[in-house]
């Protein structure tokens, strides 16, 4: 019997085409629809996520990390920390998983038109922002200055290192990197990512900020952005909570009056600023 694509709780089979280890504990899966004759995810927007199902183990919500212009090949980058992501990490090319999605609210690209853009991220937080960066580069002429501020725990934990190097070589965007700890061998910046904000080349009066990382990082990032003169209304964050259904039915990811899976994961900062003290259910 043919299965309708829009059946929201039914995972669609996808095959692992490639596994790439980005750091010691973080990997990128390249997935294609099983069978090759369609029936997979046909489009997504930057910042959206899929539910990845390892048969017999469970599901995990993982953001797309590839280009929205190439949705036939789905990239998901995650860290092997929980039972599902550890099972994903042990998959090999050719193996099948199930995918439901895409879900969630995406990064607002049109709102950035004509403005400077500052992307502030740390650690694995760069993964949900990479599709946005691809989109901004593809539509470069629509925007003012683009600045990417990236923080990592150590130099070895810098995600997408080769690609960051390519972005740094571009003449039409600024990319600043800092790490929290390093030996003297590291000759780059040392300190938390918020230290990059005061002197970054964006005009806070006409900018938009996209922020993704641990909540504590985002909190101090907002503080630094406000100090720089950036209005809260133009700061967008991607939140993470324990998502199960992806559709706003089960309530696992409830954050006050919001469901992160349905109303987010991307929120305007003013929508969630007062909700950050609410713990996961």
């Amino acid at each position, binding site marked *: 019997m043919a299965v309708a694509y829009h059946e929201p709780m039914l995972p669609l089979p996808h095959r692992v085409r490639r596994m790439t280890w980005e750091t010691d504990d973080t990997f990128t899966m390249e997935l294609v629809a099983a069978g090759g004759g369609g029936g997979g995810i046909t489009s997504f927007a930057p910042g959206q996520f899929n539910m990845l199902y390892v048969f017999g183990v469970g599901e995990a919500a993982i953001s797309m990390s590839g280009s929205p212009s190439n949705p036939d090949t789905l990239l998901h980058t995650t860290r092997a920390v929980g039972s599902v992501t550890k099972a994903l990490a042990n998959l090999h090319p050719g193996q099948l998983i199930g995918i439901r999605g895409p879900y969630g609210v995406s990064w607002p690209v049109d709102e950035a038109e004509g403005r400077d853009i500052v992307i502030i991220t740390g650690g694995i937080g760069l993964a949900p922002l990479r599709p946005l960066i691809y989109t901004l580069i593809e539509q470069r002429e629509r925007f003012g200055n683009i600045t990417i501020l990236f923080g990592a725990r150590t130099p070895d934990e810098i995600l997408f290192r080769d690609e960051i190097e390519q972005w740094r070589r571009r003449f039409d965007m600024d990319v600043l990197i800092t790490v929290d700890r390093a030996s003297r061998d590291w000759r780059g910046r040392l300190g938390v990512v918020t230290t990059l904000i005061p002197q970054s080349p964006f005009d806070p009066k006409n900018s938009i900020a996209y922020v993704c*990382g641990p909540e504590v990082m985002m909190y101090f990032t907002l503080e630094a952005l406000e100090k720089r003169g950036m209005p809260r209304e133009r700061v967008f964050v991607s939140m993470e909570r324990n998502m199960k259904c992806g559709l706003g039915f089960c309530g696992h990811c409830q954050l006050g009056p919001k469901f992160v899976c349905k109303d987010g994961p991307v929120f305007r900062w003013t929508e969630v600023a007062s909700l950050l003290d609410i713990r996961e259910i």
Partner: protein
Amino acid sequence: MEQEQEQPIERMLRGHDFTEGLSDEHVARLASMASLQTFHADERVLKAGERADRCYLIQEGQIAIEIYHPTRGGVPIQTLGEGKVLGWSWFVKPYRWTFDAMTYTFTRVIVLDGVRLREAMEADPEFGYPLAMRFMEVCAERVSHSRLQMIDMFDPH
């Protein structure tokens, strides 16, 4: 280390983030206590325990604040670049540096004479208070950043 002379220090001071909002009179007064200095990469700027008698306003380059560890040698804690202030121990008893500092790149700084500056700040609160507040901000920012580093926010465990 090379000493530079006869540079327009007052103009350079006005261009530094630290003096933003200070009156022309106060900037001119700071300039009377200032000199310019450059460092090559890998030069020591400060050594923990030595007398703290100056303050650096970084114009260009990268300086690492380090702490000495008996087996690991100099352990870098934070780097400071353009627009930042290095050194506040000249302002607080016992006026000894608490950390080391090394340049990572060629670095250009404005050096303030910490002893003269401290005396001038104590003698004239109208000059001293706004400066003290600025140095307080520098200290608060360093403490805040160090706390964020301590919590290891990118550790998934």
